């Protein structure tokens, strides 16, 4: 489903004494449909950067990231946009949305962008909001006014509202209580069962053991 080969990345910071910071070199792995792979390694080893490269949010210097026939590294912006609409879902650590847009619309949007109809989108969104215990009274409010844990759950709903074949999860359970953590675990397991390739960063060992089929130590691809 997803194939990373010889991936290299470094940052060149012109404004900071021309610093050259290697991030990854020679990153290489595959993820099959229905499989969940956990990225591991100490903080700062490049896990989130690798995930951002798969999403096309960071550029890679060289190598390839193949997802259903497209190489994200060399893809045009429009090809990446198309992948994001229907193929790759990404739950980042922080929710970034327009102020004043109601939660229900925020979470239904990815389904509509993927080509689904509005009524269906809202129905699936409602169901997921309930599963992740976002009280109904909040659905018409902007999630930017919510607590950290609620915002994270809104972000998770956004990532699961459309059945993306590839899912990228950056610390999806970091600030959740046990009940919500279990609900997220269920969602991940269901995604695997429908054949999604899942790549996750899970600092919580309980979560990792519950969903990951194998681990990839990103520090082995250390740039330095």
């Amino acid at each position: 489903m997803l194939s990373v080969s010889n991936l290299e990345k470094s940052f060149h910071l012109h404004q900071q004494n021309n610093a050259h910071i290697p991030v990854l070199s020679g990153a290489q792995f595959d993820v099959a449909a229905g499989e969940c792979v956990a990225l591991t390694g100490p903080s700062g080893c490049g896990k989130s950067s690798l995930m951002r490269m798969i999403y096309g949010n960071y550029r890679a210097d060289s190598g390839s990231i193949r997802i259903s026939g497209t190489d994200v590294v060399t893809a045009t912006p429009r090809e990446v946009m198309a992948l994001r609409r229907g193929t790759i879902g990404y739950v980042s650590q922080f929710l970034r949305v327009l102020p004043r847009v109601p939660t229900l619309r925020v979470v239904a949007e990815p389904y509509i962008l993927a080509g689904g109809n509005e009524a269906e989108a809202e129905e699936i969104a409602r169901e997921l909001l309930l599963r992740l215990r976002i009280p109904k009274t909040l659905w018409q409010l902007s999630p930017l006014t919510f607590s950290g844990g609620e915002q994270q759950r809104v972000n998770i709903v956004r990532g699961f509202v459309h059945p993306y074949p590839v899912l990228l999860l950056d610390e999806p359970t970091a600030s959740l209580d046990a009940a919500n953590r279990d609900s997220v675990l269920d969602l991940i397991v269901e995604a695997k069962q429908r054949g999604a390739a899942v790549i996750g960063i899970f600092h919580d060992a309980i979560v990792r053991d519950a969903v990951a089929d194998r681990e990839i130590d990103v520090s082995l691809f250390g740039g330095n």
Partner: protein
Amino acid sequence: MTDILRVNGLSKSYGNQIGCADVCFDVYPGEVLGIVGESGSGKTTLLRCLAGHLEADSGSVEFVLRDGVRRDTLTMDEAERRQLGRTDWAFVHQNPRDGLRMAISAGGNIGERLMAIGDRHYGNIRATATSWLERVEIDPARIDDRPSTFSGGMQQRLQIARNLVTAPRLVFMDEPTGGLDVSVQARLLDLLRGLVAELGIAVIIVTHDLAVVRMLADRMMVMRRGQVVESGLADQVLDDPSHEYTQLLVSSALQV
């Protein structure tokens, strides 16, 4: 899907001052392209050359008309280009006073563009104007009031209604949120995003506000001294800028 606008080698100088130099890009229907840069970077010059408000020195601006015919708008005659400006194109100015007629009513401002494309039925025009006032969240009871009695945010929303009422296929925007309070900005951005998605219009938006680009644009171009120094997916350019100047712009933006 193919492009609706294709720009090649567009250049404009003022004497020996460069306005914009050798700009090339294309836009598809339903896409929002953000153009950023500091004042004097050439972004407004570029926008005005694209829209035909300023004569370019060289290059081409090909626009695909409704019937599929591709035309270089730089070589069109003035009457034809003006017709385009009333129908398929729209231009939203930073200052709503530049895009509205302050001496006629809000309804008249919206109706004028409809009449320019041949609408003559008073009842229809008024009904359309009313529905557009609602869409941009202006109380329809204000239809007969002049825009000079409106707040800045309302004037800007009225300017957007006036521009979008004729269902243009390409909209140019010059700092549309520039003079507005932050609370009004968010509402306007949400409105714009909804309209762009619903109507499938292509938008070229010039701004110095990187947050506006992040929220609205699919792709972006960064300009400095008249040149495009970096372009790509909006979030990629903002989160992983590669050009020295883009890194400076992004790292200088205040975080809230």
